[in-house]
């Protein structure tokens, strides 16, 4: 049995190391001889046992003695631990590919593949803290949220992408191009919601509302695209808003009038109230077919969500 364990262990280690590959071959030879009803004559077991005990004996005779006495049991324990940790690593790798985090969807625990947690960083709702925020992820959902008043691009697709972001949030700005690419590529239904998580950007939401009301969705999407892609400092300077509106050949006065009206303020407030019903805790929060992705994930994560790469 230790030969079988050795074959699996060294087989895995052999992927990375030539010396372990040779040991794996030796272990295989040992098993092959056993299954063909011949004695394993390579001395493989003793070789491995000897090598291990030699390392221990120079440090502690007692430990070496114990190691020798309980060699088989210890082999099993280490084997099970290795299989367990291998499965754990595989699970982590799978999660990272599919969710952008080793620990699962929106989980912000340490991940060796993303040690700085870049894929989970958000601008926190409430205190505008930038970075990693760990909340009860499961509660972020679209249940009972009315999205009919938000800018929407409808297609024939069965896929729907909802992007909740803030113009002043670096992570929203990071995710934005990937979401646009995804929506474009998949021709998905798309809903955008501005959530002013950081800084005073409510006026941009109100301006957006006014543009949409006066000029329609196309004009809004152009402005929205600009606000997410242009220089952040420039668009966040309130004094530049009129220039921006003018650059899109919009009637600045008309837009400002509506944006500053009680109607716009109420509409934007109502939108935020609806968004709060999702229990979102940071921006960006992206729903793809109802599944929440908090933080700027790699494009493959969004793509996988639509492709249904995931099985569980």
């Amino acid at each position, binding site marked *: 049995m230790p030969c079988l364990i050795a074959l699996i262990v060294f087989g895995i280690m052999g992927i990375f190391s030539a010396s372990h590959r040779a040991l794996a071959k030796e272990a295989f030879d040992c098993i092959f001889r056993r299954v063909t009803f011949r004695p394993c004559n390579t001395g493989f077991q003793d070789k491995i046992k000897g090598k291990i005990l030699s390392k221990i004996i120079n440090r502690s005779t007692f430990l070496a*003695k114990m190691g020798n006495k309980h060699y088989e049991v210890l082999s099993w324990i280490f084997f099970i631990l290795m299989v367990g940790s291998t499965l754990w690593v595989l699970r982590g790798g799978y999660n990272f590919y599919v969710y952008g985090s080793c620990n699962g969807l929106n989980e912000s625990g340490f991940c060796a593949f993303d040690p700085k947690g870049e894929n989970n960083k958000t601008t926190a709702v409430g205190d505008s803290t930038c970075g990693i925020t760990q909340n009860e992820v499961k509660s972020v959902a679209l249940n009972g949220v009315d999205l009919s008043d938000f800018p929407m691009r409808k297609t024939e697709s069965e896929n729907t992408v909802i992007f909740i972001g803030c113009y002043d949030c670096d992570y929203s700005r990071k995710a934005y191009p990937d979401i646009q690419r995804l929506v474009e590529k998949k021709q998905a239904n798309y809903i955008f919601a501005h959530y002013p998580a950081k800084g005073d950007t409510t006026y941009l939401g109100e301006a957006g509302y006014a543009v949409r009301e006066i000029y329609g969705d196309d004009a809004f999407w152009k402005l929205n695209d600009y606000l997410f892609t242009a220089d952040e400092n420039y668009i966040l300077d309130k004094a530049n808003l009129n220039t921006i509106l003018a650059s899109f050949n919009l009637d600045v006065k008309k837009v400002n009038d509506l944006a500053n009206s009680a109607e716009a303020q109420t509409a934007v407030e109502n939108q935020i109230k609806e968004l709060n019903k999702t229990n979102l805790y940071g921006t960006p929060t992206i729903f793809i077919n109802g599944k929440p992705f908090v933080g700027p994930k790699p494009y493959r994560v969004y793509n996988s969500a639509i492709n249904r790469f995931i099985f569980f």
Partner: protein
Amino acid sequence: MLNVNKIRADFKILNKKDGAIPVYLDSACMSLKPNSVVEAMNDYYFNFPACAGRSAHRLGDKATKKVKEAREFVAKFINAKSEDEIIFTRNTTEGINLLANSLGFVKGDVVLISDKEHNSNLVPWLLLRDKVGIVVKIIPSNTDGTFNLDNFSKLINGAKLVSIVHTSNLDGVTNPAKEIIKIAHKNGVLVCLDAAQSIPHRKIDVQDLDVDFLAFSGHKMLGPTGTGVFYGKSELLEKLSPFLVGGDTVEFSTYDSYKMLEVPEKFEAGLQNYAGIIGLGEAVKYLSQFDFNDIREHELKLNTYITEELKKILNIKIIGPENPADRSGIVNFYMEGTDMHKFVIMLDEMADIEIRSGQHCVHSWFADKKIYNSARVSLYLYNTIEEAEAFITNLKKIIEIL
């Protein structure tokens, strides 16, 4: 008395600057090589890598001269009457096979061997038994592994050849070659000695022994691998019919005839291992500077220490006589029910101590005694008492945990 430190300075591996210096206790399998042997071989490859004995140019001449020199060194080393009695082979095994296939054995011929023969002096005779129908008789040793002359005397009558190990690689026992040869000759029987383990450790004088044939290897006597010597008395070699023929064994040939060269050339078919032969000559030259009594005294000192320490360890059994003086430089031991391979692996891993485990090519003896395997320490002139102590210390550690 040997100056071991001075000797060790001649071996590069024992003066390594990088990495651990091995505690090499496996010289019965393979000896270390002094720098001069390696340099002599390099000299051939770098400066005159030509054919010896055939090419007339200067490089060929130099190679011929060096090979001749090596033959002379070897002849002098074993006190052969003539250098023509020295046939270069690849090893002891080839020498014995040469004899087995050249002496003209016919069905019913009897060959006597001991019960502790290396496969090289057992299998050729068993093969000949199966192919030709010779009779192989085994001379049982005493219980302590020493040679039983009475058993031998009872079997000698009617034999054609006694082919026997001189010093056993199993237990280090040196058989009383002179008495054996005397008895054999009295009965008109030829004697071949397997001197692979004796020649590195004791003076061999073929004339004094009056031995008919002698085979040994270069690699156990500080020489290169793939080298060996088969000695035969001139008059006997003349009568042998070579079994390997071809290049460099004939004076001339036509499409339907050939004329063999004289000995030793007629037995050295094909292009020879010139670098090896030159290296062997150098090894013989190196070894000749020592008094073999000093080598034996040194080995005995180390063997005595190891033997005494092993005796203190419960369950360890030493193969062969109790007295280390009867075991040359060999201490072969085992523990019943224990696979000795693990000792070898652990000693190597723990402290770079190299000993050998297994059945040491004497499977027949182990099968007969129903012993699984053993661990063998074999000493030589470059080993030190500190190395012997390191071996014992680490062995005790291993035994403590097993």
